[in-house]
């Protein structure tokens, strides 16, 4: 079962501390939405409010068309998967998964058979009689998922469930979560601070910072065309060139920067208003920097010296100091074939279509 989630004007304070400020969010039914942000950004608070474990200081929460703000967790059509799984250690896996059904008064035979179905869904068929302490972390998590799905919630809330797993297991679980979500069709709301994880599984990413929403969109959009400086920096590494809007004419924006005048297509503005004189930062992702101008589309940034490089398997991560802006070295991802050594000077360029102009909100 699945439902649409609407969060209207939700704010929440812990004493004097404002954990959330005026959150407005609509999540379509059946979507896999990820709340992404650093610790303290309010994502877990928002999840707790969705689950009914916190009552918001202001605002309403709607699931389906129903206002659930005042309903207890048991009464809502949500289930939460906790970070420490919270499997009942004194019960078998089957009893754990069947717990919610037992609370709903299902007879034993029916709830056991449903529990077995769900354990099979999470690839743990045959483990019905085992106890949680006999399982590994990844397996426990699957049981927690099965237990949460057993009661057919409209919305499944996941509180950083993959944090305790190692990389390989995490990747595997990300794939599995995605597959299962598609299969059952329930709306998933998943909290994490790992942007790679968010991009791997989300239909939609909600980037949060200090209690507010910074950006909302599909992973590609939020990564390639971030809506704010914070989102840009959080989604991945970014080179930020300060400057001002010099002119805005048909199809082209001209920026004045330390590298001179740069002419960029208007698509790089996004939703920003092209006010002349406005302070901006030009965001260029490391993979969009090139060491030479082998393409006339590229815009040059002048000479830059390679300061260090490190091999990351899929690419080289290099720091380059440019002559025009020596105090802020560039981070570039160069292909495996790039044969550069420390000390080399290159003609640094970037692909203008891939760059993004962002409002300069830094003080």
């Amino acid at each position, binding site marked *: 079962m699945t439902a649409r989630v609407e969060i209207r004007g939700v704010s929440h304070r812990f004493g004097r501390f404002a954990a959330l400020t005026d959150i407005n969010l609509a999540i379509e039914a059946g979507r896999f939405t990820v709340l992404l942000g650093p610790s303290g950004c309010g994502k877990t608070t928002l999840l707790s409010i969705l689950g009914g474990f916190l009552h918001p200081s202001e605002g309403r929460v709607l699931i389906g068309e129903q206002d659930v703000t005042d309903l207890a*967790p048991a009464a809502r059509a949500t289930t*939460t998967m*906790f970070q420490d799984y*919270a499997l*009942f250690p*004194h019960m078998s896996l089957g009893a754990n998964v069947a717990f919610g059904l037992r609370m709903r008064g299902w007879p034993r035979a029916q709830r056991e058979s449903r529990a077995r179905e769900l354990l099979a869904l999470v690839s743990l068929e045959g483990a019905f009689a085992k106890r949680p302490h006999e399982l590994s972390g990844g397996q426990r998590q699957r049981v927690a998922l099965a237990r949460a799905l057993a*009661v057919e919630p409209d919305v499944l809330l996941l509180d950083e469930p993959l944090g305790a797993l190692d990389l390989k297991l995490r990747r595997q679980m990300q794939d599995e979560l995605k597959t299962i979500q598609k299969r059952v069709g329930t709306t998933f709301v998943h909290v994490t601070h790992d942007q790679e994880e968010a991009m791997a599984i989300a239909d939609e990413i909600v980037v949060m910072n200090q209690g507010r929403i910074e950006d909302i969109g599909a992973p590609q959009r939020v990564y390639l065309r971030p809506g704010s400086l914070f989102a840009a920096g959080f989604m991945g590494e970014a080179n930020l060139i300060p400057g001002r809007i010099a002119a805005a004419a048909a199809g082209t924006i001209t920026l004045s920067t330390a590298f001179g005048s740069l002419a960029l297509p208007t698509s790089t503005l996004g939703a920003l208003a092209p006010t002349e004189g406005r302070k901006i930062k030009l965001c260029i992702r490391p993979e969009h920097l090139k060491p030479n101008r082998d393409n006339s589309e590229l815009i040059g940034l002048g000479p830059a010296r390679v300061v260090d490089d490190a091999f990351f398997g899929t690419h080289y991560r290099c720091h380059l100091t440019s002559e025009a802006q020596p105090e802020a070295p560039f981070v570039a991802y160069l292909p495996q074939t790039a044969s550069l050594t420390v000390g080399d000077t290159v003609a640094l360029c970037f692909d203008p279509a891939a760059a993004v102009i962002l409002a300069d909100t830094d003080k």
Partner: protein
Amino acid sequence: MADLTPFEKHERRKAWAFVLPTIIWTLVFFVAPFALMLVISLWQRIGTQIVKTWNFDNYVNFFARAHVVEGLLNSLEITLIVTVISVMLAYPLAWIIAEKVPHRWQRLALILAILPFWTSYVVRSYAWLLVLAQNGVVNRTLMGLGVIDEPLALVATRSATVIGFVHFFVMLLTLTIYANLSQLSPNYRRAAADLGANPLQILIHVILPLTVPGIMVGAFLTFVLCIGDYITPQILGGNQELVLPQIIMLQIGRRADFPTASALSIILMLVVTAAYLLSARWLKLERA
């Protein structure tokens, strides 16, 4: 085992130097006296001498002397009653402090609940003597309220002993059960609530099973301390129904009959060991 390097040998000698004093101390002042007690229990006191008769008479006679067997039975009965009542009273108290009292006040609430722990044990039993005396608080209050006409003979009864014990062990059990309760991850309760359990169901299906270790540890401690206690029965219980520790002390005090006293003590120890073996299963705290 491979030969140790000189460094390792040196380290090992140091380690022995640390450990041996305590081991020797324990052997001299605990194991040896205990062994001596075992030996003496096989001898007998005849006249004013202790004769090395080397037989099990003391043990066999245990079953022959009705009042001694009764003493053991009294001990067991009282201990079991006390344990059950104390658990039943302490669990809700621990639960209320852990769940209902606001977090800021929990530590204070707990300290208050065990504060009388810190009166001297002898004094505490004496205080119950005061409360339960013929002209004491309880009788005066009941008569004043018109509930009874004549004062109840509360002291020098088994009930007085039980009350005195329960008073002490409720505090002990509240501690162990609270410790268990407060260690439980709050997510267990949240997950259960999330899945539709009401507070009563959460208590029955989740909290009670997970606090069994705390209960068992406390109950075992209660059993061991209660069955071996001399003070409370002596002050509150009177001379009609003696418990085993009182009988042992009689052998020592009045008659200096160490052989019999030793034999009875060994029997008491065996009872405690039996209790331990029976409850060992729960005392291995499973890490949830």
